[in-house]
């Protein structure tokens, strides 16, 4: 079984009339997919969000198990064999590197897959080192996986797959969860790896422009079944660019346009930080270092800077969710909270919820109920709203954020874009005067991106203060009235 691993051969892929229905769902996730890939072909897989791209990649990786996870039709063959029986020929890298790493040390993590495949002890460490070199991993084998940056973790995850020498490499939005610097490093590593390998490649990526030079063919999945387009990237984007962009794909030359509105003059200050800083237990430095900044009515403030500068922590401080280690964060009377207590972090939850809305980076952290409708009612009810007023507000938000068809769905079962819209909706449900958002546009498709930017602009124009912690230059360009750049570590 291990012999065919030592010589990596590119895999031929044959998908015929394939479809998949998740257990317990009525609709097919995918249906009628026919796709043939010659060994060594490099393909970009496209389609609107929710069309089943990840499901198809999982099927190619042989990870879909019809006996417990769903129902299938048609076949997925790698070199003529069912994908599930030749799983070792394919290697899949996912979006979230944190979830892909298994062991505490980098070298052990890469070795883990080799051990599982029964590679002899004498060959394991040379293959580990080779894989770490191939992805440009900057640390030694003993590096702690938990201390790595996102870009380093993702390169390590890639090394863990490359060490297994797959004949078919599958990449599922591998840069979507990374900051721009980390994403650039991973793309460079990918370019190097692909130049040195002749493996077949299927990749899914929202941000198409950044990977165009890595692929020679683009395949677009059609919602409801089959393929919408198949051909060279130039011809596919030439013919279907506008349609793809409308469905949320970041197509080069079709980037979403948001008309930049001139802000009204900034109003009175609502929250201000005075030399506020915070030091995490055991940390050597303060992140952020002493920062003074004010948040005013009708103004959009962008907080930018490299990873580790303390942007997210500053957001927590400005939202009253963290007590500053030094300095202070205070609310003015204009914010409308308790009159006798200016220190924001001492406010009760029900005072905070009607004055400051917070959108967390991970939407799942802030969901507390079992349906979208109930989720939207939490804030207004805690803020003391009467039942009919709460119900009316919930309906209004469901419409405004296109959540009405999902009103009775469990928040945890929503797609990434839907979760983001819901988390923003819950934060603005009480019409707070300040909205603090942490990476609101992170990993979103083009359609959700445009909707979020327009919504935030509306909120600003209504006279609210909007704080955005972000790496997204396009968001800053489209919306920020003022930018606070935190210095890096």
């Amino acid at each position, binding site marked *: *079984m291990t012999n065919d691993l030592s010589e990596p051969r590119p895999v031929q892929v044959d998908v015929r009339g394939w479809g998949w229905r998740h257990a317990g769902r009525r609709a097919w996730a995918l249906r009628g997919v026919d796709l043939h890939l010659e060994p060594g072909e490099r393909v970009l897989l496209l389609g609107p969000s929710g069309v089943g791209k990840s499901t198809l990649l999982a099927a190619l*990786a042989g*990870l879909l198990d019809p006996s417990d996870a769903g129902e299938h039709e048609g076949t997925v063959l790698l070199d003529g064999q069912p994908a599930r029986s030749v*799983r*070792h020929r394919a290697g*899949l890298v996912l979006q*979230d590197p944190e*979830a*892909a*790493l*298994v*062991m*505490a*040390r980098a070298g*052990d993590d890469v*070795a*883990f*897959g*080799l*051990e*599982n*495949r*029964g*590679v*002899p*002890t004498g060959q*394991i460490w040379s293959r*580990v080192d080779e894989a770490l070199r191939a992805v440009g991993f900057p640390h030694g084998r003993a590096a702690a*996986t*938990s201390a790595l940056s996102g870009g380093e973790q993702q390169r390590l995850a890639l090394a*863990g*797959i490359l060490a*297994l020498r797959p004949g078919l490499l599958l990449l599922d939005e591998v840069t979507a969860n990374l900051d721009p610097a980390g994403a650039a490093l991973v793309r460079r590593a990918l370019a190097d790896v692909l130049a040195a390998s002749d493996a077949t490649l299927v990749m899914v990526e929202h941000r198409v422009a950044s990977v165009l030079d890595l692929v020679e063919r683009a395949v677009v999945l059609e919602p409801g079944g089959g393929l919408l387009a198949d051909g060279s990237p130039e011809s596919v984007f030439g013919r279907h660019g506008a349609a793809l962009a409308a469905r949320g794909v970041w197509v080069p030359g079709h980037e979403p346009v948001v008309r930049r509105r001139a802000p009204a003059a900034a109003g009175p200050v609502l929250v201000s930080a005075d030399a506020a800083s915070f030091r995490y237990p055991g940390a050597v430095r303060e992140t952020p270092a002493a920062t003074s900044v004010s948040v005013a009515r009708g103004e959009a403030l962008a907080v930018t800077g490299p990873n580790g500068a303390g942007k997210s922590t500053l957001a*927590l401080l400005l*939202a009253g*969710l*963290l007590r500053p280690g030094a300095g202070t964060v205070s609310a003015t009377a204009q914010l409308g909270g308790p009159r006798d207590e200016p220190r924001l972090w001492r406010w*009760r*939850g*029900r005072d*905070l*919820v*009607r004055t*400051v*809305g*917070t959108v*967390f980076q*991970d939407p*799942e*952290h*802030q969901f*507390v109920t079992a349906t979208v409708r109930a989720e939207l009612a*939490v*804030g207004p009810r*805690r*803020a003391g709203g009467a039942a009919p007023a709460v119900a009316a507000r919930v309906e209004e938000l469901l419409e405004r954020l296109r959540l009405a068809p999902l009103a009775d769905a469990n928040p*945890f079962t929503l797609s990434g874009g839907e979760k983001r819209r819901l988390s923003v909706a*819950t*934060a603005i449900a*009480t019409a707070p005067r300040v909205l603090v958002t942490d990476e609101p546009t992170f990993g979103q498709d083009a359609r959700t991106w445009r909707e979020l930017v327009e919504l935030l602009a509306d909120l600003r124009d209504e006279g609210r203060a909007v704080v955005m912690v972000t790496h997204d230059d396009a968001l800053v360009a489209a919306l920020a009235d003022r930018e606070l750049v935190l210095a890096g570590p």
Partner: protein
Amino acid sequence: MSVLAPLAPDTGARFARLNPVAKLTAAIVVLAGLVITGDPVTPSLLLAIELAVLPFTGVRAATLLRRTWPLVLSVAGLAVTNMIVVNGGSVLLDLGPADVTSRGLESAIAVWLRLLAITLPGIVVLATTDPMDMADALVQRWHAPPRFAYGALAALRLLPLLAADWQMIGRARRARGLDAGRSPVGRLRLFGSQVFAVLVAAIRRGVRLAAAMEARGFDTSGERSVARPQPVRAADRWLVASSLAAVALATAVSVALGSWAPAFGG
């Protein structure tokens, strides 16, 4: 939580590099020797030997005490309970419904010493052993199922993330207006629902981790190979032999002094 965190051992120390299974065997030998003993002499001799060799294990006594004092305290609590429950001999202290007797005091000291002498080797083993080495050794030497050993090892890596989740979920709930205020019932309910939320987050992480392990061939029934062999060397055999000798010595001295007594009955 601080008890669970490693005691920052010097991984280069000779003791740390011994086969984890040998260290575990030595600790089990001490445990077996003391489980059958009911007198105070045997455990005090063994505890004295353990403290004498502690410096050679690379664990610093001060660090050990600072990190394990809750454990020492709870062991003392057990001993006090024992003191009150066991009766016999002369009454030393009349506490009304419960008396402290000479038999009770003797039994309490024996229990306290026994528990300390049993737990100390266990703590030292954990403190000086990398969890990865432990899993490797258990799989290679004791044929523990890899699914269990490496599954538990990978899950261990998620523990610190759990603490981070707890904090973030707590903040997110405050942002949503959910804090308990002064009502103790409200506090309890909020605590319960936050525990549930963190549990849900932990399960989701666990499912993702299991999928990541499966994607790298962890579930295949084929033969696994070994990246880090854990051989049993002469030093490992010496360690086990020494632990046997120490238990035999302490028991022999206690018997010779006429103080040895079995733990149960008698």
